[in-house]
């Protein structure tokens, strides 16, 4: 086995943060995408959307600030940023479906070379539900996936065709893994960058 470890979760998040531009409204998924918030340059004005009804999410609260009525989509207690607004779930998804969100960064189990994404169910296992993922990927202006390059069995999660039930079709623009950064162009993965020390990343 190779000794190459590639990027850490935090380094992947930092790489994903480079996708964010000043003035963007961004939805961050659960897991590594949540860490992206820690890497947004302070000089940028960026609004983070939480699909349970908040635009302008900020960090975790202090013990004194905790409010049961203020949570993110991962059900964690949070705080609001300056300029934040609250709205209903229907308005939240009008914002998403209506393409008012500039960028969606989320995790996945598989991404195919034509931009299909699978991240909500594994046949034979208890299905938890898709939450807002299908809405987010089907209508975002730009979808960036952040995930480990291979699964526990060492198989590439960047595949020719997804074998798992799909979350959305032909919707992923870019994939950031521990091994590198890959764009989807004309139905193929193209290597944009490899993590330091990585000489090869398995692609279909």
């Amino acid at each position, binding site marked *: 086995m190779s000794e190459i470890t590639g990027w850490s979760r935090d380094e992947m998040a930092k790489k994903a943060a480079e996708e964010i531009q000043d003035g963007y409204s961004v939805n961050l998924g659960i897991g590594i995408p949540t860490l992206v918030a820690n890497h947004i340059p302070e000089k940028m004005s960026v609004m983070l959307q939480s699909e349970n009804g908040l635009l302008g999410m900020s960090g975790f609260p202090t013990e004194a600030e905790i409010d*049961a009525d203020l949570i993110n989509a991962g*059900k964690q207690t949070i705080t609001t940023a300056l300029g934040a607004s609250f709205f*209903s*779930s229907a308005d939240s998804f009008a914002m998403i479906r209506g393409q008012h969100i500039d960028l969606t960064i989320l995790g996945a189990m598989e991404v195919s070379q034509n931009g299909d994404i699978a991240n909500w169910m594994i046949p034979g296992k208890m299905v938890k539900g898709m939450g807002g993922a*299908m809405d987010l990927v089907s209508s975002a202006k730009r979808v960036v996936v952040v995930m480990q390059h291979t699964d526990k069995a060492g198989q590439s999660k960047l595949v020719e065709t997804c074998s798992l039930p799909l979350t959305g079709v032909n919707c992923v623009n870019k994939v950031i893994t521990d091994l590198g950064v890959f764009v989807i162009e004309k139905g193929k993965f193209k290597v944009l960058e490899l993590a330091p020390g990585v000489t090869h990343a398995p692609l279909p």
Partner: protein
Amino acid sequence: MGFNKIIKTAEEAIEGVQSSMTLMFGGFGLCGIPEKSIAALKKSSINNLTCISNNAGVDGFGLGLLLENKQIKKMISSYVGENKLFAEQFLSGALDVELTPQGTLAEKIRAGGAGIPGFYTATGVGTKVAEGKEHKVFNGRTFILEESLLADFAFIKAQKADPYGNLIFNKTAENFNSVMATAGKITIAEVEEIVELGELDPNQIHLSGIYVDRILQADDFEKRIEQRTIRGL
């Protein structure tokens, strides 16, 4: 009487609910759920319910209480991953589940309350969600037809009400509550505070009282937190 909708007990909140009805419950996770009505339903013998709620509570709280009592026949939700009991009942076939994308669920309810029987959305195109549904192309993009939802009763939670049922929600505890209020034949709002008529600034009201039939005030909402996360020091 007139427009005064204030009730005194959780038993009055669920008055008229019968077995086999369809009920909506506001909330996202455990945030902004109608705790008092759920507790009253748990005490009742009402069962065989179809429950429309984004989530299914957790073991021992929220809709998890009704699952425990096997009062729910079917759940229409977007994410049910926080509840072990749910998994057991689903896998044994005791519980039917209709998983719906969260935005589609919100819009089905919004449309239902607004008198719109269905709508086209791109959400779910090319996935299991689209199976068996009408597809239609608009400007070169494919959409599927989703039908709206209504309920016999909608149970919601708000922060503040006046006696006419005008409501103010608090922060992210609004979530599904405001749209569900519009889609229940009878809507019950649980609130933390009832103020005098005229005390709410009409400019600041989040939901018009026309959608609210009963108001139940309580001082002792548990407001349980699922993921208590605090800032690292």
